[in-house]
């Protein structure tokens, strides 16, 4: 429990890196002026403004973007939203998009845009900043931070000794009716895609069917599952690791749950990468590339791991002390193998009867 007294101060007021309101307000003021300036220029942006579509929320990246603007004098304007919805927006905008950089919380959204030919190419020296396995071989995206898939469990209802060593064991009838799942959620879909890469479609399909046969409780998203496990509504849930850390910070002892990492690089605990891509045809490709470089530098990487308990992905960056050491083999999933065939992942989930 020592860990969580540390967590309290991480996002508390005593942290010198915490955003100051003055800085935020300044940022807001700058951002408020940006559209006026852009409108005067006939809608196109000049080379000194980077336009970012960010699936990562303002709370988790805004202060770092402000720092970049301060240091380089490049102004940054941001559209925040859900990764998948921003990807659909980018596709609708096509070559009229003003976006230069897309930051996605989900590899799936990047894969979709890659398939539509809407991603540019990052230079090799930027790709080199990230650890192996956390970047696209063709340079279309680079990982900024990672979220680990875990099994969150209610500490009142589950004895840690009975927790399985592999996500594949959750099809055991012993877990019938006890598992929370979010099949409509991007992270779960990304995880199933990764499983297809690792184990093949047949094994993945039979696992999905086994899970469905175990009568899982369906939820909307990771957040909903983690809250439900925390209040004892369901015993365990397949989620990303940081929600429970976040909620313990928010709710204290009322969040009665812990994370279980499937050991030995199990596919159930792989890392879901949150990445950045240049948008094809970006007007401000150069400053946008500089921004990516900045996001992989120490200051930003430390911010990511301390603010959200994510795993930093730059070479040499240290994860926050509350995070268990990561087996990096698990990040080594080449989504490109699926060739953008993510619709099939949804179809498999649906066919297994896991919709909802």
């Amino acid at each position, binding site marked *: 429990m020592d860990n969580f007294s540390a967590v309290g101060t991480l996002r*508390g*007021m005593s942290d010198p890196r915490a955003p100051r309101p003055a800085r935020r*307000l300044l940022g807001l003021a700058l951002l408020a002026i940006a559209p006026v300036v852009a409108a005067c220029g006939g809608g196109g942006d000049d080379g000194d403004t980077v336009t970012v579509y960010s699936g990562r929320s303002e709370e988790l990246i805004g202060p770092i973007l402000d720092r970049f603007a301060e240091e380089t004098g490049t102004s940054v304007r941001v559209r925040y*939203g859900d990764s998948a919805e921003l990807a659909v927006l980018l596709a609708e905008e096509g070559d009229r998009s003003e976006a230069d950089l897309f930051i996605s919380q989900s590899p799936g959204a990047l894969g979709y845009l890659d398939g539509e030919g809407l991603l540019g190419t990052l230079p090799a020296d930027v790709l080199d900043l990230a650890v192996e396995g956390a970047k696209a071989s063709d340079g279309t995206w680079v990982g900024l931070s990672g979220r680990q898939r875990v099994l969150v469990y209610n500490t009142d209802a589950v004895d840690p000794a009975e927790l399985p060593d592999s996500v594949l064991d959750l099809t055991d009838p012993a877990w019938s009716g006890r598992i929370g799942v979010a099949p409509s959620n991007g992270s779960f879909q990304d995880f199933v895609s990764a499983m297809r890469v690792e184990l093949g479609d047949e094994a993945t399909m039979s696992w999905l069917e086994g899970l469905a046969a175990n009568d899982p409780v369906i939820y*909307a998203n990771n*957040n909903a599952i983690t809250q439900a496990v925390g209040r004892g509504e369901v015993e365990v849930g397949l989620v990303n690791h940081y*929600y429970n850390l976040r909620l313990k910070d928010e709710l204290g002892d009322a969040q009665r749950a812990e994370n279980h990492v499937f050991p030995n690089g199990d596919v159930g605990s792989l890392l879901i990468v949150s990445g950045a891509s240049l948008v094809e045809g970006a007007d401000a490709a150069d400053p946008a590339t500089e921004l990516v470089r900045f996001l992989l530098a120490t200051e930003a990487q430390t911010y990511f791991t301390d603010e959200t308990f994510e795993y930093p992905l730059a070479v040499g960056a240290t994860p926050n002390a509350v995070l268990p050491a990561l087996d990096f083999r698990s990040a080594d999933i080449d989504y490109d193998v699926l060739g953008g065939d993510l619709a099939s992942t949804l179809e498999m989930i*649906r066919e297994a009867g896991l919709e909802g």
Partner: protein
Amino acid sequence: VSVAVAVLFALPAVYVLWRTVGLDADLGEVFSDSVAPLWRTIQLAALVSVSATVLGTAMAWLVIRTDLPGRRVWRILAPLPLVFPSFVGAAAFLAALAPDGLFRTALEAVGLSAPDRFRGLGASWLVLTLFTYPYVYLPVAARLVGIGSSLEDAARSLGDRPRVAFRRVVLPQLRGSMLAGTLLVALYTVSEFGAVQLLAYDTLTRVIEANRIFDQPRSFAAATILLVLAVVVVVLERLVRRRVPETGRVGDRPAAPLPLGRWRWPSLAGVLLVLVLALIGPLAALAQWAWRGLARADQAGAQLGEDLGELLTPAWNSAWISTLTAVVAVLVVLPVAHLTARYRSRVAGPVNAAVVGGFAVPGLVIALSIVVFTLNTPALDVFYLTIPALVLAYLVHFGSQAMRAAEVAVASVPDRQRESSRMLGAGSVRRLVTVELPLMRPGLLAGGGLVLLSTIKELPATLLLAPFGFRTLTTRIWQSYTDGYLADVGLASVVLVLVSGALTWVLVLRRSDALA
């Protein structure tokens, strides 16, 4: 004018159909897969429509027409459950049912046990009823204020007992307003996503959302089904309405409060129970989140000041954009309402359907259709990602709420009064300003109020279409919620309810004479 308005409002439908055809969806397969979610959507919409209509009408009658204790306070609070963005409302309800939550504690205190899992049809029905009854409450309350009491008094002086007088005299005069509200509740429920998703009730909107990126043909085909469902709802409502006699009488003397007698205290308990479930309870759960976060920080006072400071700009943005949208919406739909309510012309039906149908389309689809429209219309692309485009999206989505209220308002101006003012030689503008507008005012304000409350909590269109850097309270709440910053969700939600409450009071209730 009306045709132009209709074209604007038909944009989302055109977009959806165009995409469904263009993406070459395997319609047969999608339709057969969609039967179950469609049936669930219909069940929920039917149940919520009935219960919200009963609840909204009862609340309006008690709060406007009777001597219910504290009614002036309840009049301000009664429309407010509408301000919760649906995912916040549902999340707060779930939090209140958590082991240490307010509702569970209260239930256990009186010896009842709360359900272990609050989900599915029953849960969605309860939550949506509580958060949508104001769609019925506002127009019915406006109508009750307008019709006065002379007919009812006459009926009672002729020997009818109060209950009989209500059924024979008051209820028939309310039917138009009730139906207007029911229609909105039905369409809202059909297009609802946030709450049913959290409460794990699998409807058509889930099919649209879950497939929006990897399986777009399926997503758009489901949206087409939703459109068809919306048209069916609109047609049904028109069929029912045609059989409702329009007994438009307004402007007689204001009603004296009806004494409730021995029903006074039970009625008060009922109104209180509704407000606790729909407003106070969820608000307390949100405040508890905020409080936990503040108590955790070292200096709670300084932290509160800082967080509130960060909410100032979003709060101001939320306030002015929703007010602007409400005004624009009333101005735009008034001519259409005039057309459909006064003259049963051939264009009126389709125009009306186009306006009303906009409410049944999920916000994401509306936003994308406006993106495509502004970017691909030569002179309009300069408006892309500007306030006018955002207001247009709100208007297309929520115009129907002003529309139905405006129709009822237009219909409530007695022909006699219009005729006599015309015979006295007043020009059409003067007639409108001096005779008709004052009579329509409660109805128009109620309609504008609905648009205001809907706009202030709108999320998907705001995220995709707002100018860079334009944040509202709702976008902040959503961002904090997705990342699990519950204290920030709580604080911003409390501010959202306060801002909405203040706006409703200043702009709608206070100006609507006897509404407050």
